[in-house]
């Protein structure tokens, strides 16, 4: 067994795993910290919002009304108040609450009245149990399911199974193929005819964005990779906030051949970003294409963006 243990250590030391882009990771961490400190409203980072939701504990009987008072948010309706969330999850920011509210709005929009009542009820019941098992130790959130009785554990499992079924419906409603996105978008969805040598398209997908708005609009992502380095292209209706807006605090607008460009500026990082805003035309709504990339300079990003117009 000793030799096997040594071999195991060696394997761990030498085995290669897919490495992340640590520069981008560091940049994202910094941005998250800044957003958290500012408590500025934004629409990203769903993870903590989900965590916030799961920590909630509010009594519930049979779900929430389908028609809520206009002044009352769904977060308030289901969980009592935003303060309730913040009390139970110290990491929940205003932005997370906003995202949570949007997600609940989306669920309400997609689900039938009967499903919504079930969904909201299950969420609250789940929250009640999660509240019971969650505690903070040295600033770290810990979930100890051993605090539940066997019956409670079984109830919770049942709740989550039922939620999972409804989640599948929501997932299905939110995800789009590129072709479907093209049919729904009122702006052109294009691929760049130029990308720097070595970059390969690895992921292309789309989802509906801003489901609270009366007209939902798709957001498209193309991800190219060259080894560990990435090139991310996002396309959406003009004015949508996304990765580009969140990542770059300093932005500089300039015009090239009459087209508006917004350059994201960073200090001490090799991550660069550029957004191109196309005005409304007779046939399309105004739209925007943004790029975030490692190692590429502004001129290169501009060349990529302009190549999306040559189709």
């Amino acid at each position, binding site marked *: 067994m000793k030799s096997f243990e040594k071999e195991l250590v060696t394997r761990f030391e030498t085995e290669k795993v897919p490495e992340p882009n640590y520069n981008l990771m560091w940049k994202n*961490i910094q941005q998250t910290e800044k957003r958290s400190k500012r408590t500025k409203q934004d629409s990203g980072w769903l993870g903590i919002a989900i965590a916030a939701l799961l920590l909630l504990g509010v009594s519930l009987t049979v779900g929430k009304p389908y028609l809520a008072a206009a002044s009352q948010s769904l977060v308030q309706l289901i969980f009592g108040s935003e303060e309730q969330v913040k009390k139970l999850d110290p990491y929940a920011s205003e932005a997370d609450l906003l995202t949570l509210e949007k997600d609940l709005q989306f669920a309400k929009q997609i689900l039938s009245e009967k499903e919504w009542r079930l969904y909201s009820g299950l969420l609250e019941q789940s929250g009640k149990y999660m509240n019971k098992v969650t505690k903070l130790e040295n600033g770290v959130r810990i979930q100890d399911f051993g605090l539940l009785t066997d019956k409670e554990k079984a109830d919770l499992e049942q709740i989550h199974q039922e939620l999972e079924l409804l989640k599948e419906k929501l997932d299905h409603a939110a995800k789009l193929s590129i072709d479907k996105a093209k049919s729904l978008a009122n702006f052109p969805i294009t691929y760049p005819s130029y990308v720097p040598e070595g970059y390969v398209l690895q992921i292309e997908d789309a989802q509906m964005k801003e489901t609270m708005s009366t007209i939902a609009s798709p957001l498209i992502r193309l991800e190219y990779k060259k080894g560990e380095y990435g090139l991310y292209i996002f396309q959406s209706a003009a004015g949508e906030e996304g990765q580009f807006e969140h990542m770059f605090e300093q932005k500089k607008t300039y015009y090239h051949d009459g087209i508006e460009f917004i350059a994201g500026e960073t200090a001490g990082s090799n991550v660069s970003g550029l957004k191109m805003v196309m005005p409304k035309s007779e046939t399309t709504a105004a739209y925007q294409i943004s790029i975030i990339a490692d190692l590429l300079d502004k001129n290169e990003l501009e060349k990529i963006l302009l190549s999306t117009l040559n189709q």
Partner: protein
Amino acid sequence: MTEKELFDQYKTDIYRTCYYMLKNQQDAEDVAHEVWIKIFQSDYHSIEKLKPWILSISMNECRNFIKKKSRLLLFADFSFLSKKMGTQEAAEHQVEQNESKKELIQFITMLSPKLKEVILLKYMHQLRNDEVAAILQIPLGTVKSRSNKGLLQLKKLMGEQHDSYFDREVVE
């Protein structure tokens, strides 16, 4: 130590821990991100033994993620920021790659989370049993029994599914 210095020193430890626990690059990146936020929101300057503390947070976040992912995912993910879109495809691609290479992670993944935690801390991070016990907040005896059980399972898995696994690697 500045945040950047701390990040540079432990970024690989955290990411690799998450990767072996979750077996998916995108998930590992997301959880590693959460780990770093928690670290920076804490008073890490006052922590004497940073690595065990950091690994403790990493393990907790991985556990929470596994629980959430397996049972508590309630919403569709609309956030491009999180880069989770395409995870399915990426995961499938990754699994294919891993299978063809017969990487250690394939065997680690087959262990239960409890055994996996102990194996990773002992053999990837090369911590002593008492350190593992402190990080996981379990008795020393439990560490030993889980470690033995994990080793036996790994040995069996490697032996059964990949004859002369290590021998073959040495020959290459």
